[in-house]
């Protein structure tokens, strides 16, 4: 990790040096533009919760590195991040509106779902603050101790997901279908409902983002039996234990959406010089020691990537085989 960090800083330095040689005039013009301006940072959820916390942190520290600017966080919740994302996409591309939303919207775009009024590949990507690897968690009182235990169950057990169409729903339904997991999917468990239900015993497990289960596992209420992405040496990587080719393709998709978590993006066609300035400020914010200290204290992982790297990942994630898209479609449009 340390080494990784050093390399990143070195690369950043190199990039900055190259950048300053290449276009000092443009960058200065871009930076000057933000003086005295107000930047609206749209968070596609209600106040509170991970998206809001990351959003406020990013906005606060981007402001620090864009002298003279004022960042205002605006919560635009609704329709599973669609309202906020549509608003970011439709905003004026002057660099004064950016924001954050769930990467799971990749799924919605792939199947061209209702309510999608954006094209993620065209957005102006600033960066991402973290990765949210997925895990399979089961209740502590359940006899299931390992992934193998789960797969070889005779009678299906209840797995909780949020509302239909949510990322947790889509991922769980797809994996259950392809891997023929012995699970019955119970919908409507939003927020931390699933954890309480696991304590009550009505729900046995859940496929969720790792950070939402850290505390639960630490308190001894549950255990993790597999991971998708992530680098926990004690957990089996799901892509390594499955053999089905279709499943591997799916896992790669889930992994990549997990990789680009806590993102910051703006509408298409923000002028290049201003986007560069925004990316620069985002990068400085991510490397700020104060931000790191605060994030660590709240238990928010910081694992950033910037600009073009994100664009490549988004484009890769949006290129899926027709079979995967069909599977997604089947999972998102629930049988009536």
């Amino acid at each position, binding site marked *: 990790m340390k080494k990784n960090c050093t390399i990143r800083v070195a690369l950043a330095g190199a990039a900055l040096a190259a950048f300053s040689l290449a276009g000092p005039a443009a960058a200065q013009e871009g930076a000057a533009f933000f003086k005295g301006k107000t930047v609206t940072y749209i968070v596609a959820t*209600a*106040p*509170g*919760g991970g998206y*809001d*916390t990351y959003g*406020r942190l990013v906005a*606060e520290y981007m402001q620090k590195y864009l002298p003279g600017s004022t960042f205002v966080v*605006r*919560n*635009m*919740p*609704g*329709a*599973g991040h*669609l*309202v906020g994302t*549509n608003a970011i996409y439709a905003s004026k591309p002057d660099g004064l509106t950016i924001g954050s939303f769930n990467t799971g919207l990749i799924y919605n775009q792939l199947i061209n779902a*209702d*309510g999608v009024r954006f094209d993620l590949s065209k957005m102006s990507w600033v960066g991402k603050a973290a990765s949210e690897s997925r895990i399979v968690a089961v209740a502590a009182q359940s006899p299931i101790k390992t992934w193998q235990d789960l797969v070889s169950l005779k009678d299906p057990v*209840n797995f909780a997901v949020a*509302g*239909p*169409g949510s990322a947790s*729903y889509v991922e769980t339904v797809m994996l259950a279908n392809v891997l023929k997991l012995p699970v*019955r999917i*119970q*919908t*409507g*468990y939003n*927020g*931390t*409902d699933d*954890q*309480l*239900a696991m*304590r*009550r015993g*009505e729900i046995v497990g859940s496929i969720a983002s790792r950070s939402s289960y850290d*505390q*639960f596992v*630490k*308190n*001894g*209420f549950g255990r993790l039996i597999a991971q998708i992405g992530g680098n926990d040496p004690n957990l089996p990587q799901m892509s390594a234990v499955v053999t089905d080719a279709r499943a591997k393709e799916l896992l790669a998709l889930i992994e990549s959406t997990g990789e680009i978590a806590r993102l910051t993006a703006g509408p298409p066609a923000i002028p290049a010089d201003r986007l560069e300035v925004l990316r620069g400020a985002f990068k400085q914010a991510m490397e700020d020691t104060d931000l790191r200290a*605060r994030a660590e*204290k*709240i*238990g928010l992982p910081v694992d950033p990537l910037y600009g073009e790297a994100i664009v490549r990942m988004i484009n890769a994630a949006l290129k899926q085989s027709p079979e995967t898209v069909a599977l997604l479609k089947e999972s*998102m*449009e*629930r049988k*009536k």
Partner: protein
Amino acid sequence: MGACRLMIDVMFGSLVGLLTNPQTMGLMLIAVMIGLIVGATPGIGGRLSIALAIPFVFGMDMTQGAVFLLTMHAVNGTSGQISSIMFGVPGDGDDAATTIDGYPMAKKGEAGRALGASITASGFGGIVGAIVFAVMIPVLEPVVLSFSPAEFFLLAVLGITFIAFLAGKGQIFKGIIVGLFGMMLSTVGMDPQTGTARYSGDYLFLWDGLSTITAVLAVFAIPEMIALAARGGSIASTGGEIVKVSYRQLFAGVLEVPRHWFLAVRTSIIGAIIGMVPGLGGSAAAWLCYGHAVQTSKTPERFGHGAVEGVIAPETASNAKEGGSLLPTLFFGIPGSSGMAVMMGAFLILGIQPGPAMMTQNIDLVWTLIWALVVGNLIAISFLLFITRWVALLTFVNAAMLVPFILVLVMVGVYSAEGQWENLIILLLIAAIGWGLQRYDWPRAPFVIGLVLGKIAEESLHKALGLWGIGFFTRPLSLVLIGLIAATIAYAIYSNVKGKNVMPAGAGS
């Protein structure tokens, strides 16, 4: 015995620690003020205020930071009642229950008495909530874990059956129609089972359902303002003469709480337990307790026309639930409400690790927080009682000056609650219906009950059926609740029939 002595030491030690630290007390004062101001402004939830305060507590001492945020959150509900009583403008779904009797009291020139009673009731509820919190610590697990989706469904149904009492005598069918209309509107939005958008067209803002605060303001606030503007004069229609809102009137209100102490204790406990069980939501507590007050009253026909019990019950409940909802947050690390979810994030920043270990490692902090709830509520009550005398004078201001101001307040509230302008159109549409209901003397409370509890009922029924199939209601607690529902319905039919026989004429007067 020794353990008991130790417990008492910790208990009072933390109280002394809290009261003798001038810095903590100063912070609490500031927190109470912020909490009251935020609570009095419609549309700004307590959640947002905590989220905004987080940067300020960063770096504070663990105990002080937690006390600061908790007090701010706890007194939030205490000031929301001011506008719901004085102008019929509830700040959120909980306050709507207070409006039903609070606003008629203001119209009778009794704003002072209503406010005295409601402020004291919310303080009382907050303190009983803290006591329930303390008592419940040992039995937290079995109690919280015995409520599953099956029980949520039955509790919601129980709340819906209270409609029969809320409608008033001879109006039971009107009540049911209005209640069903509310339930119908609760189905707007994404179907929790199939993910199909219902009655939403292409409008994304409807996907998450109708905004409760918008519907509540449309049904209560707007029709009252139209009526007030049409009538002229002031809210308090005491014949033009300004009744002096004296401390005596306020004090008379304060005394209503000890007069109805048994009701206040019951509704506080119900509120605290509903708060403890994540998933039922805050508005359910206020409405269930309002229904309970009507149902157990000897003179239910007074409700809706300015019965002071109708103010006491929801206010005790909505403050008591704060103590309750802190329990699963602190000891399970599973927040009981969205407000508590934000609070938990803040606790982590302060270095508090919620979870079962709190019980052994941080019990002094837990007690400090319980005392902070008590002391914070006391500060809030004293302050509000002190200023209310002047605030209540507003009910004697001429309508021509007051109505535009309140309408602006309502619209700002509707917009800022969810940040979607489309809700202003919904406000107009539902207000038209609300105005019709008010004009022709149809009950309006069943509408909000149907809207709030209908959604909970539908979601929990889906979950319960998915988990256990058709026989989901055979758990012991479920059977108790079914018994309560059957008894409520039987009693409603009985009293309705009896009411008709005894009072063949003039029942509606």
